[in-house]
């Protein structure tokens, strides 16, 4: 995942992005935030995908959170940026797989691999691998079928 580069967002200057830096805000479908008007809705020009947050926007919010001293929140936004590409149903299924006693160690390892391979979601994959390790130690993995 690319970082926000040399934009150097300053929480005191650039936040809220919606009013201070609308120039930076686009939807994942490439529309500018100012294009999301009622007339566009009525004309049928907008789809639910046009109301999604773009990964780059989450990285900008991460930079702002970091700037405000909130590194865990920033990390959450960086994982979120990775997850924007994952379809809704798959996100729900992944969440369910992370519940206690829901997955074997192998299934969680496969999930982490999928996150990395399919979605370049390295941070999220690391969270899943860490969970697999803890679940193993605390006896919270599902028993393997064989």
């Amino acid at each position, binding site marked *: 995942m690319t970082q926000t580069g040399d934009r150097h967002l300053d929480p005191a200057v650039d936040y809220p992005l919606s009013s201070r830096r609308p120039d930076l805000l686009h939807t994942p479908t490439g529309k500018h935030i100012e294009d999301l008007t009622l007339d566009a809705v009525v004309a049928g020009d907008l789809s639910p995908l046009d109301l999604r947050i773009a990964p780059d926007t989450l990285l900008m919010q991460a930079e702002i959170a970091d700037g405000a001293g909130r590194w865990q929140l920033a990390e*959450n936004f960086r994982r979120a940026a990775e997850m924007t590409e994952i379809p809704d149903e798959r996100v729900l299924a992944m969440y369910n797989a992370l519940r206690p006693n829901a997955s074997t160690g192998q299934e969680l390892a496969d999930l982490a691999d999928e996150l990395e391979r399919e979605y370049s979601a390295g941070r999220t994959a690391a969270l899943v691998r860490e969970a697999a390790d803890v679940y193993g130690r605390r006896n919270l993995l599902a028993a393997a079928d064989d």
Partner: protein
Amino acid sequence: MTSTDRPAQNRRSTRTEIIEARPIQLDGFVEEWPEVGMIAMESPYDPEPSIRVEDGVIVEMDGRERSDFDFLDQFIADHAIDISAAEEAMALDAQEIAARVVDPRVPRQDILHLTRGLTPAKLLDVVESMNVVEIMMAMQKMRARRTPANQAHSTSARDNPVQVAADAAEAALRGFAELETTLGIVRYAPLVAIALQVGGQTGRGGVITQCALEEATELELGMRGITAYAETISVYGTESVFVDGDDTPWSKAFLASAYASRGIKMRFTSGTGSEVQMGNAEGKSMLYLEIRCIQVAKGAGVQGLQNGSISCIGVPGAVPSGIRAVAAENLVASMLDLECASGNDQSFSHSPMRRTARTMPQLLPGTDFVVSGYSGVPNADNMFAGSNWDPEDYDDWNTIQRDLKVDGGLRHVAEKEVLAVRGKAIRALQAVFAGLDLPPITDEEVDAGIYAHGSEELPERDVLEDLKAAKGVMDRGITGLDLVAALEKGGFRDVAENLLHVLRQRVSGDLLQTSAILDGDFSVRSAINDANDYAGPGTGYRPSGERWEEMKRLRHVLSASNPEQEVE
């Protein structure tokens, strides 16, 4: 006492009889039983603070070796605690830290540099050294957002969307920044969540709404833009209770990122007493376990937490110093720089005096959301099992705000405005139901809904048809955008604009930052651009200007120039 004053057997004093007839006698109280965790705070069985860091890893915390860490210990050690701050902060005396937290001259930022390095047991020691007034002093400074706000419940015993729309509109008009609903029959959720959204945006554009459901369903409604934020993402303070809740800190952290990935604001929920109520407190105090929850929320990177015992308030409420512990848990959330929606949201006492006293530690200093939520519907219609505050109390709340000049987020609104907005909300919902081919809302329902206090005053709906339609909303893939289009088509262009503004916010992600709400003009107000700057007398948030003039208005206020007349 001499033999002649000995009371006659079985004879009661009139005073005792009067006292025994008071509502407080219906409340439940129990002795402390620390061995099972039936103790609010100051338990002899809570661990002593300690920390040992080797090669950048916490290898011992609060007397426990890393190899013995349960999953909360490990998550807190690896994600919540800032190791670079830990050794210096842990070396300070807890009472010294507490003194700095209370002292208005020590800036909030300096406190955050310390608290980020503290273990659960140390945070416990810090707040245990404070009395309730010191806790309030500290909260005044540590609350994340400068301007306090409030949240309402809008539910219906019959899951009647008409009622929910009307009460949501009224609550929004009265000043609540967030609206929350939940269900009797869970399958009703799509229709009730739509009603909440439409009603809320009619009452005041920019209010944000949520529907409390099982985690996965709640996320789905959010993803579709039918709701705007989520709150009931529960975490617990012992591993066994966490697992009973079918989650772990890692699954919850994943969920937090899932919400953010869709641009949806979210906070976790926890509270003192949940572990002992669910039967496994591991012999620790309620406050110690709650502090572990707060640190899990911090470590997960979620922006905020709803705490303050919440649905378990009867448990800390029954033991000594329990309500002080509840105030302390709110403070710890704020000390860890989390948004705090501070409870006061479940009925816990029959005594009006006790209900009021219980809210003072949040109302007086101000929190991000003083009540979470305040019932916008009568007790019988409150599907969260009743709140500590009801619509019948609206004028009491407004008067307390005015008496003490404290901002609890609400305002008095004249009846004609209330009726107008209720009517408009139901008609807007009527248009949406018609536009989406949902079971019709009749004019009789509109009329009854405008004037009703509770669900029994509304015509009954065809529940089976509604449930079929609710399923259809999910199957057909209806989203917030469809609501916008239906509102516009039905002639409610202003409400459609309001809802679109809220939906657009998720594209910017501004609402994801700590303690974010939307103003009347849809500008975001969060702990970044409205950061708490309290630094002692004359500083920080104080009601002033237009807001203070608004707070002065009540239902009956005599005119100064003409005492025969009431002020409009």
